[in-house]
């Protein structure tokens, strides 16, 4: 995955010299996860550069650079350090096209390594996506597999509207046999990663892989679990989601974020509204508990895993 993302950046910068990459430590160091590795070496300090340590500054100046005509791809070093930029994202980045009655566009991509599972210290394992799915004017995407990492990132950079690109950091080391460049399904499309009939698991980013593992494990129960990779949280592909629930009648939505008021609630609400008579049980939500992200040694108890997912399937089927 990390390599696919790095290649996407290389290719995007190679293809369009208005694409610039900046953020904390993205230059010489190549980013703490090396996602921007060798960009500065190859494209020079004008195209890939380090900024002072200030996230509001990074996003706010990206807005200005986009107004000028560049296509900034900026990095928030970790999920938990996105918050200082909240104001610039919510009040400006998301709204400027609308505020200007369509006269301004801001093709900015904010890359955010997110989620837990790597034993990190506090503030390095957050899942803040729901704060942003509620913001009109933003697109919010998260790849679950490397080929999508490449393709969604290229499409995000090409997007005339701002995109928050959530990278599942625990899947940076995930491998996939894929020839790059690759073009997968467009933003706004959910994809059925595994067909099934017993129940549907909905996930995005890091939990796609976990759900696939759960589906596999579910076979021993005689379950045929369908796995839908949402990929694009906003815009949301209600059609694919509903089609799956029509088929299976049971839905479990899985994310790492705390469940209360999380994105799973939106999925549950949409499914209920759009597939009410197909549902044989309410959409169940599996996620982190409603607590601050815990310390490294305890994260395994907090994070959804195969067992917790299968337990939810069980409860859904027994409803």
């Amino acid at each position: 995955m990390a390599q696919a993302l790095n290649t996407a950046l290389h290719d995007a910068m190679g293809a369009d010299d208005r694409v610039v990459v900046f953020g904390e430590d993205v230059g010489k160091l190549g980013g703490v996860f090396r996602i921007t590795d060798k960009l500065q070496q190859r494209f020079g300090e004008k195209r890939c550069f380090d900024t002072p340590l200030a996230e509001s500054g990074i996003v706010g100046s990206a807005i200005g650079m986009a107004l000028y005509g560049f296509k900034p791809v900026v990095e928030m070093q970790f999920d938990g350090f996105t918050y200082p930029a909240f104001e610039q994202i919510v009040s400006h980045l998301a709204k400027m096209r609308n505020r200007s009655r369509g006269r301004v566009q801001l093709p900015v991509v904010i890359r955010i390594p997110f989620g837990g599972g790597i034993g990190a210290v506090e503030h390095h394992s957050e899942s803040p996506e729901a704060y942003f799915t509620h913001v009109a004017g933003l697109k919010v995407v998260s790849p679950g597999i490397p080929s999508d990492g490449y393709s969604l990132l290229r499409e995000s950079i090409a997007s005339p509207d701002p995109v928050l690109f959530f990278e599942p950091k625990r899947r940076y080391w995930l491998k996939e046999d894929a020839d790059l460049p690759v073009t997968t399904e467009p933003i706004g499309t959910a994809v059925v990663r595994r067909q099934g009939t017993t129940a549907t698991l909905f996930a995005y980013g890091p939990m796609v892989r976990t759900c696939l593992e759960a589906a596999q494990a579910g076979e021993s129960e005689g379950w045929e679990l369908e796995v839908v990779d949402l990929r694009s949280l906003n815009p949301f592909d209600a059609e694919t989601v509903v089609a799956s629930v029509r088929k299976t009648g049971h839905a479990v939505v899985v994310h790492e974020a705390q469940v209360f008021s999380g994105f799973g609630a939106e999925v549950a609400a949409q499914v209920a509204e759009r597939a009410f008579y197909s549902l044989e049980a309410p959409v169940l939500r599996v996620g982190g508990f409603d607590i601050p992200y815990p310390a490294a040694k305890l994260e395994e108890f907090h994070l959804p895993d195969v067992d917790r997912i299968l337990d939810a399937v069980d409860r859904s089927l027994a409803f």
Partner: protein
Amino acid sequence: MVTAPLPPDPAALLPPPEPVQVLDDSGTLHEVDGFPLDLKDEDFRNLYRYMVLARRVDKQAINLQRQGQLGVYASLLGQEAAQVGGAYALDEQDWVFPSYREMGAALVRGVDPSAILHLFRGTWLSDHDPMATHFGLLSIPIATQALHAAGYAMGAKLDGKDLVVMSYFGDGATSEGDAHEAMNFAAVYDAPCVFFVQNNQYAISVPLSKQTKAPTIAHKAVGYGMPGYRCDGNDVLASYAVARKAVDRARAGEGPCLIEAVTYRMEAHTTADDPTRYRTPEELARWKARDPIARFETFLTAEGLLDDVFRAEIDEEAKAYAARIRAELYDAPHGDPLELFEHVYVDPPASYAEQREQLRRELAANEAGA
């Protein structure tokens, strides 16, 4: 000991002790070393014209608000010299990133005041074209536009374009983290960005003394390694001269700087505010005596640049502006509500069709009901 070398005269980092003043309080001109005036008669007249127009437009806006035609309005009364003088130093290709009080700068930059007032009427969130006018959207969240200015200037610098950006904000705004980050970014990248602070002494009810302990706002520049200038913001020539220097430096690749124009907000913070709660008539009277237009008039008259013909001309123009504004704003209908879905995304999500349809149904039902 490994440290960066300091400049030979460290005190040169500090703003000069007194603000630049070109016209003294009685309207007499004194050129100031280092801030030459490069203005022709034409320019003097133009500066005056913009100030008078700004005041007239401002008054019209306040009236419209009183008549219930605008939701709210933030007056520039008393700040005409600072705004006009600053913006007049810019060239065609340059950009301005304003706050919500920059009607004077807007006029100088050729932005139609009616477009600005539609924001205050609430016809749309904003109604001028930033790309065509090089005048950013009015920014209400304090200090946020300073970062857009820094970023735009960084872009120009990266692109090697001859272009200067001016960001206006207030004394209160200097307390926000965004102002700090903007000045730091601009400085680090040597971006051609002029931060123009109108120190009008108040942030709503909060006086400058409760906003900062810095000796002056211009002193804040020291922390970014850029020059800080001060000028008498009620002196249009000083405001211009200092902006001229700042813009020239930036254009020459010498990087950003901070200007503090010392002025006063003669009106309420906005039409919704009651300033009698926090300031005295005496204070107001003191500043009224320093009116920027009156002072410039004295000078122009003495120089023979202001005669009755020119006055009448401007008066006509001002009236025409006001009339156009009334015609454009008074009872101006809002746009088609369905337009609400038009400008959020180039490529709206599927759900927009449903929501648009819901609104269409509601509108139809209202029509039928009415």
